[in-house]
């Protein structure tokens, strides 16, 4: 279709006390894998629920596939696959019965497509949902979201609770659907979870959109952290003056270095000592907000 697949204009949902979503203007293009980042309570799930007409906006409007979310929600839901962040399924029923029911609500789905997803994710369809682990329940959630080959996928925290192997399967599936022109709108509260799969990112804070940019630009301003475990205590001062280093913290034999840009100076400085382990640390969205604004004032 011509134009954005998802478009919001001043979309707001005010829950009072400063909670909710305020004046969201956003466009997601066809074939994009669009990451929607923000800390818990930033308004990510609220946005997704507004797009699916599960809740009504206080003001503003949204369109999905060119259709108004208020008046054409039935058609939107027909063409969208959704994974809720706090996925809940009928606990007494088996995965097979749950998927059968959800498929029937869509007027049926291609059994081969569903079976293929079940096989790829290694989902257990024969045990009651309440006996499944969180990760196995999330697999069912992903299968139901993908099984009708939707034009748009709205996935709320899709990676949470998945083990690394299943994450790999999920990432390859995203790449496949994106290559076929499907649009993916997915949320996360950490950059590292989505940076492998997204083309563009939006960052939301306290219900307001603060950044929409290509992944490369955001990654450039993101502060990286490496936790380096040495064979003996090391003077943290050795890292403080290195190019790009913004913060250094030492705790016994472990030094955590925050830096911008290339990791080369940090790694070369560390290599002068016996290194037991190097671990990347979670990115901090607050740092991204602050640095982004410092570099690109509005």
């Amino acid at each position, binding site marked *: 279709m011509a134009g954005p697949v998802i478009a919001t204009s001043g979309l707001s949902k005010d829950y009072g006390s400063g909670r909710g979503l305020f004046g969201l203007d956003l466009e997601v293009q066809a074939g994009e894998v669009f990451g929607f980042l923000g800390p818990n309570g930033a308004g990510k799930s609220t946005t997704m629920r507004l797009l*699916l007409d*599960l809740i009504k906006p206080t003001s503003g409007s949204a369109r999905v596939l060119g259709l108004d979310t208020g008046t054409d929600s*039935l*058609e939107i839901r027909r063409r969208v696959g959704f994974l809720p962040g*706090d996925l809940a399924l*009928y606990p007494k029923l088996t995965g097979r019965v749950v998927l059968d029911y*959800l498929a029937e*609500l869509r007027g049926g789905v291609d059994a081969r497509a569903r079976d293929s997803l079940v096989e790829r994710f290694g989902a257990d369809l024969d045990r009651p949902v309440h006996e499944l682990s969180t990760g196995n329940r999330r697999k069912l959630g992903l299968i139901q979201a993908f099984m009708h080959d939707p034009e748009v996928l709205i996935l709320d925290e899709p990676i949470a609770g998945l083990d690394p192997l299943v994450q790999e399967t999920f990432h390859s599936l995203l790449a496949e659907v994106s290559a076929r022109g499907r649009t993916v709108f997915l949320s996360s509260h950490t950059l590292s979870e989505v940076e492998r799969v997204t083309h563009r990112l939006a960052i939301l804070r306290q219900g307001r959109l603060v950044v929409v940019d290509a992944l490369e630009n955001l990654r450039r301003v993101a502060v990286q952290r490496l936790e380096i475990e040495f064979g003996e205590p090391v003077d943290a001062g050795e890292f403080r003056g290195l190019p790009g280093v913004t913060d250094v913290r030492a705790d016994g034999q472990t030094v955590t270095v925050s830096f911008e840009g290339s990791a080369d100076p940090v790694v070369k400085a560390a290599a002068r000592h016996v290194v037991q382990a190097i671990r990347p640390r979670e990115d901090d969205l607050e740092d991204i907000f602050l640095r982004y604004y410092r570099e690109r004032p509005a």
Partner: protein
Amino acid sequence: MNWPTTRLTLRLRLLSTASAAAGLIAVMAAVGALFPAVGHTIGRINVPKSVLNLLGGGDYGTITGWFRSEIAAIYGPLVIGALAITGASAITAGEEEDGILGLVMAHPIRRSRLVASKAAGIGAVVLIIAFAMWLGLIVGVALGGGGISIGHMAALAVQLAFFGLATGAVAIALGAGTGRRSTATGVAAAVAVVGWLINSFAPLVSGIGWLKYISLFYYYAGSDPLTRGVDIVGLIVLGAVTAVLTAIAMAGIDRRDLRA
């Protein structure tokens, strides 16, 4: 209507419904079997009129009075009302609070249609229980020596079914309208109990006898179906209450935000 939703609703409650149905039949068989031994003795005890009214008239000396008091007055409506209320609350507000409805309603089905289909599932549960009630009455009355026609027993089951449908519709309207399970269950139960008390006591108090007309219980048992058969007016009122409340539930859930 959406048949998969109705079928799933019924499936989720099948075990509890089957257990309740089997229990009902067993209880009524036991009640009937007790009548020859204790019915006439209890019938001679002097009991205040207000208490007798609570027990459906309390004519324990006859098999009709015995079943009216033991089953029709409290036990029958209690079981069918409890199943209808808990079921209706669970499939609306319960699923919403659990977060299940959020996923289901992200599928291409109108909320009003979904609620109507779920209501139909609870309606089927009520009909199964009412049918079990009828079977239980047949067994119980036979064990008690007979004396009530199958038609009159069916009349009680039919009145009970409509009472269950109306009581469940109260819970569905509240559950769909508010999304709060405790509100749906609590208020619907209160409506049923207060209705029972009003129907029992209002006629005894000068000037407030008319209050019985606002009680669902009156339209269920007011005409004594075990003696007089089906009360068409009662069924029309209960059916209308069910239809109106279901329509309110469908409109209510369409207009509000899902809570979870």
